[in-house]
């Protein structure tokens, strides 16, 4: 393992008046060889129909982090020329990972149900109780890839400062219609972003994953991209520590406006090199409410 160029920040704030935070997130790794940056956020559906969605969201994040980690470990351990490796990884990323994630999520959710049974009847219904979205990303020196099921925003600041949302659905979804890991054939709705990094410094410099409790807090539709653009500026001008110190305040503000849990997990490539690699500040990691 080597220290990598990425630094992480993340946090989650419970929506006002909600009984508990139904979002979950994780952020780990440094982006050096052997330590891919893996980011994930999940937004449990929350409403009365999904009383166990906070558990579902945590399982989604955990399984995603595990599976992507395994995929990257495998890629590193097999002796294949780099050219072949990327092709194989692409196939796994687009084809296997979505299926595997959905299957492993279901398995763990049904295990949880076994341990803590409730009243719902069939397995289909049980799964819905845990319904959640998932948005995840991985960064290595060679690759940036991301996966999304349901709402949430992947916002990327490229090396040249341009901000984009590569996983934004082609058409806006209607109302509260949402895609969920709790639905049958959930893998079919997983969107995949695949972007090998062809030369050092050619990939993104900031990758931010957020739940819609953050994006819905802005009055304008492009609020979230402007927020992430601003985050990039802040990081460059004031540094990581300063941003970590204010992040939960920002998220709290967002949660007040959207009325929903607001969560962000981001990785930033520090142009000045590595400061303190590893996990974000624990005080920010803690889910404040």
């Amino acid at each position, binding site marked *: 393992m080597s220290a990598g160029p990425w630094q992480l920040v993340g946090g989650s704030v419970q929506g006002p008046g909600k009984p508990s935070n139904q979002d979950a997130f994780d952020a780990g790794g440094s982006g050096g060889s052997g330590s891919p940056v893996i980011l994930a956020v999940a937004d449990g559906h929350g409403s009365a129909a999904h009383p166990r969605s906070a558990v579902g969201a945590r399982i989604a994040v955990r399984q995603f982090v595990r599976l992507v980690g*395994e995929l990257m470990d495998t890629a590193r351990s097999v002796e294949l020329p780099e*050219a072949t490796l990327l092709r194989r990884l692409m196939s*796994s990323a687009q084809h296997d990972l979505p299926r595997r994630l959905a299957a492993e999520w279901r398995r763990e959710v049904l295990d949880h149900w076994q341990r803590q049974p409730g009243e719902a009847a069939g397995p289909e219904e049980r799964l819905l109780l845990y319904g959640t979205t998932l948005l995840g990303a991985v960064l290595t020196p060679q690759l940036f890839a991301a996966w999304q099921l349901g709402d949430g925003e992947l916002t990327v600041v490229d090396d040249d400062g341009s901000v984009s949302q590569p996983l934004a659905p082609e058409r806006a979804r209607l109302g509260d219609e949402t895609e969920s890991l709790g639905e049958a054939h959930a893998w079919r709705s997983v969107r995949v972003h695949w972007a090998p990094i062809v030369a050092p410094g050619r990939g993104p410099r900031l990758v931010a994953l957020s739940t819609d409790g953050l994006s819905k807090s802005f009055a304008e539709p492009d609020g979230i991209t402007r927020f992430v653009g601003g985050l990039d500026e802040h990081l460059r001008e004031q540094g990581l520590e300063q941003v970590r110190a204010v992040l939960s305040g920002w998220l709290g503000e967002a949660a007040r406006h959207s009325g929903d849990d607001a969560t962000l997990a981001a990785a930033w490539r520090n142009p000045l090199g590595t400061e303190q690699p590893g996990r974000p500040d624990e005080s920010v990691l803690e889910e404040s409410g």
Partner: protein
Amino acid sequence: MTGMLAEGALLVTERGDQVEVVELLGSGGQGEVYRVRTADGGQAALKWYYPACATAEQQGIVQGLVARDFEDDRFLWPLAFVPAVADAGPGFGYLMELRPDRFRGLPALFRRQLRTSTVALLTACLQTVEAYQALHSRGIAYRDISWGNLFFDPANGDILVCDNDNAVVEGDASGIGGTMEFMAPELVRGDPGARPGTQSDLHSLSVLLFMVLMNHHPLKGRLELAIHCLDEAAERQLYGRQPVFMFDPVDSSNRPDPVEQGAVAHAWEAFPQSLRALFVHNFTVGLRDPSARVRESQWRDALRAVLDAVVECAGCGRQNATEPSATGPGACWGCGRTLVLPPRLVVITPPPRSERRILLRRGARLQQHHLVAEPARHDYGDRTLVAELVEHPSRPGRFGLLNRSDSAWTGLRTDGTTQQIAPGQTVPLRAGLELDLGPAWALVVAP
């Protein structure tokens, strides 16, 4: 998105034609693909290899393919080699035509994002088999058949094979290794002497056909569900060391899981025995013995017969692929109702005499390839249309055969009278009607 080539970058093909980069279309496993403007004002696609993939060996393959000048509308073939230029960075690429939008990739099919039909899928399979057969008959091994290369038109089953930059002359030892899912078991295991070639292509082709028809991988049954991580050893086991077909008649250890994989079990039941038998053979005996794999000509014969035996369910409207040799009707795979079989057109080709049996379902079409025993291609397009089943414009429920060819037919009725059917004319459909179609004879047979 930051690609390797900048918008507006100018490159020059090996033949000296200039192209200008317009935009990045997407990233793949080996390189990026750009839309470019060509010197004649047209547009083309430019594949540009990642540095790690821009090897001398790859360059040799691409230049060899360009020199081959392979003209076949089923392939997007490398048309011109494009060397590196100073300000576009290192590497190289090649030009190909842009893929028309009507062609869609298989992931969209697997994700149920396309509207298509049984006939279109069977047609796509037949076209795929013939396309690879055309390559193999020229001594070229494709070596890279997978769901990433095949694009098809969900409306009619036309296909386009893309990403042809790993094909080499048979026997060339250079290694490839895309996804293990499509690799022949002997290659996954790395058996001594095993090389990618026509025989391993036949395995990949069968996997691809199975996936197009069943939307599932033939070896991913419950054994795969029992694996909880994404690792190499598990894949080698599934695809190399101990591959078991989901529907192996003897070994039931890898049957589809009824909950997680119920759809594939249902799809399997929806296809006729003659087609299933080929899959069973290929994924049992053929897994172990490369020389026993189902050949393209076998797939072609089975697929075209099944295509001619598709009927629509009168109850739910779904297309059903019936057993071509069956005498009884069977039940609809969608709603379970007993199918009503329409009359059949039996076509006898000139020597070497062969018989083609076409169920006259609504909209049934007779194509030029139906009239010869060994057609070079099975084209289902309008240009090779001979006849079409049409409903009488003012008497619904009455059908006739419309002559869509450019020569007249002679009809012989059961009462011995004859009738000329000029191009554009329709002959009413009656059991016992015989038609002299020029090269071939046809007979209408009651269900």
